[in-house]
């Protein structure tokens, strides 16, 4: 998975931005209020409705076991959206700390951080995460933590570049002259001042994190049945393709694609506004 979202030649039109924001809001509300929106349970098996097409009863059809796809998508949005959120929380906690440390101390700390980063970058794609999963076993928790570790260097690198520019500003020297300690300056002033650009960067990374996590679930390394994680739903829906039933894979697939596109549209706009460069 390579970096997503480069700068578009012109600022994205607000229409696309509004549509993306509205769609995401809809998904979040749907996921939170899932029990109110649909009459079905996500795991309710009903073989009478196996591979049911789109109908007033099953708005998006049903899968092989007759589980309502709309219901599963809404419940699945919980794991599929909270997962990337958690992994970004882990990655940004580590990444911001390491990046700030590297920019503040320079010298050997900087060198060590960048060597560790180099080794992690030597593993192409998701292979570093795959190694961790091979050792500690499959599962959503392991997948989220492993991805969090894998994303930390990217965030550290970005934070370091922002922090280097920020450290050169006079206010940092001003606090230092007043006798403030390094840690206090970093925690109280440096990091909060970088907050805006880091958050902008995290929005761009969210889409990528969601794709990575869904890919792991698709390979069987992430969420395990009977979870209705979107990646896992695509995996489980695959055998039905040959029978001519496309809904079980297309519905979760479209959900992933639309959410990622929405995040990228919003991310590009935020980046344009705040002068953050997506890598």
């Amino acid at each position: 998975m390579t970096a997503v979202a480069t700068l578009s030649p012109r600022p994205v039109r607000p229409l696309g931005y509004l549509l993306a924001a509205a769609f995401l809001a809809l998904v979040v509300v749907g996921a939170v209020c899932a029990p109110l929106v649909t009459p079905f349970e996500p795991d309710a098996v009903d073989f009478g409705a196996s591979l049911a097409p789109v109908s007033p009863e099953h708005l998006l059809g049903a899968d092989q076991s007759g589980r309502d796809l709309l219901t599963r998508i809404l419940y699945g949005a919980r794991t599929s959206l909270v997962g990337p959120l958690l992994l970004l929380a882990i990655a940004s906690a580590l990444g911001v700390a390491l990046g700030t440390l590297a920019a503040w101390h320079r010298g050997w700390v900087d060198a060590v951080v960048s060597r560790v980063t180099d080794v992690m970058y030597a593993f192409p794609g998701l292979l570093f995460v795959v190694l961790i999963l091979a050792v500690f076993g499959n599962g959503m928790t392991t997948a989220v933590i492993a991805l969090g570790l894998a994303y930390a260097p990217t965030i550290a690198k970005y934070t370091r570049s922002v922090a280097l520019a920020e450290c050169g500003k006079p206010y940092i020297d001003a606090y230092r002259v007043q006798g403030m300690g390094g840690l206090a300056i970093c925690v109280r002033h440096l990091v909060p001042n970088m907050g805006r650009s880091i958050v902008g960067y995290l929005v761009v990374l969210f889409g990528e994190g969601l794709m990575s996590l869904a890919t792991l679930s698709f390979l069987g390394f992430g969420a395990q049945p009977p979870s209705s994680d979107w990646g896992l739903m695509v995996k489980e829906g695959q055998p039905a393709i040959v029978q001519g039933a496309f809904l079980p894979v297309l519905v979760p697939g479209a959900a992933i694609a639309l959410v990622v596109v929405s995040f990228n549209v919003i991310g590009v706009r935020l980046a344009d506004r705040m002068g953050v460069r997506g890598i």
Partner: protein
Amino acid sequence: MVRKLTGVLATLLVTSFVIFGASYAAPGDPVTFLAGGKENLTPEYLAAVRAQYHLDDPFLVQFGRWLGDAVTGDLGRSTQYNDQVGDLLAARLPSTLGLVAYAAVLFVVFGIALGVLAAVRGGRTDAAVVAGTTFATSVPPFVVATVLISLFGVRLGWFPVMGGGSLWHLTLPAVTLALGALAIISRVTRQAMVEQRELDHVTVARASGLSERLIVVRHVFRGALGPIVTMCGLVTAGMLAGTVTVETAFGLSGIGSLLVNAINTHDFPVTQAVLLLMVTAYIVVTTLVELVQPLIDPRARRRT
């Protein structure tokens, strides 16, 4: 040059150390982990595993032996298939390499063509290419795979759905693998061409009355070739890791799907071997790309 090569060797050494040492990070005794976490292991079997991995030696000696064996082609024995790991890899590598080569041809040809088209035509074509590539990078490959199988494999019946071997079987997987790469290459091409077009020598060429076609081919594209070739090399290097998803989605038997099976069956020797192979290939190819750079772009020669 020498410095760069020692750097690469050091990176290779450290990554192989990480891949080797990972089995020690696993919870529990490494013997049971390496034996595949099976139940009811006989003491004789555990002793055999211990001997195979030299587990009674000091840690660094074990690593040295493992690395020495790996370099000479002895990658141990699969706990799942009970075959030599080297044989398993050799049997599956050709189809993976074929897939990567097919995808590389696709993304190089179409990616560069789209990028040039966007840069030269501008306006609506440009906007369409940019929008299309943005969308293409937002859809994960396994979703693309299922859409292609549904549409071209089952609904239209143009391509076989499962199995491998022929070029025909590999077309849909190759398209899936190439799509993300194509988006990156066309964007890099477009960007490089646009930057080149504003340089003085292009203005001179235009002022001296060269045809637009000649300017684009001989001056703009020639100047933009450096970053394009570099990116093509880097993307191809990363593709080996991309086969993990694509081969699993299409049920192809290559080293990517071998890795997924190995992990799901706790076959750690195979996991280690495939990871080592993919990481080594990635590092070697990216290094080659860097070394080739001065040959394409005389300007890079002067800088180093």
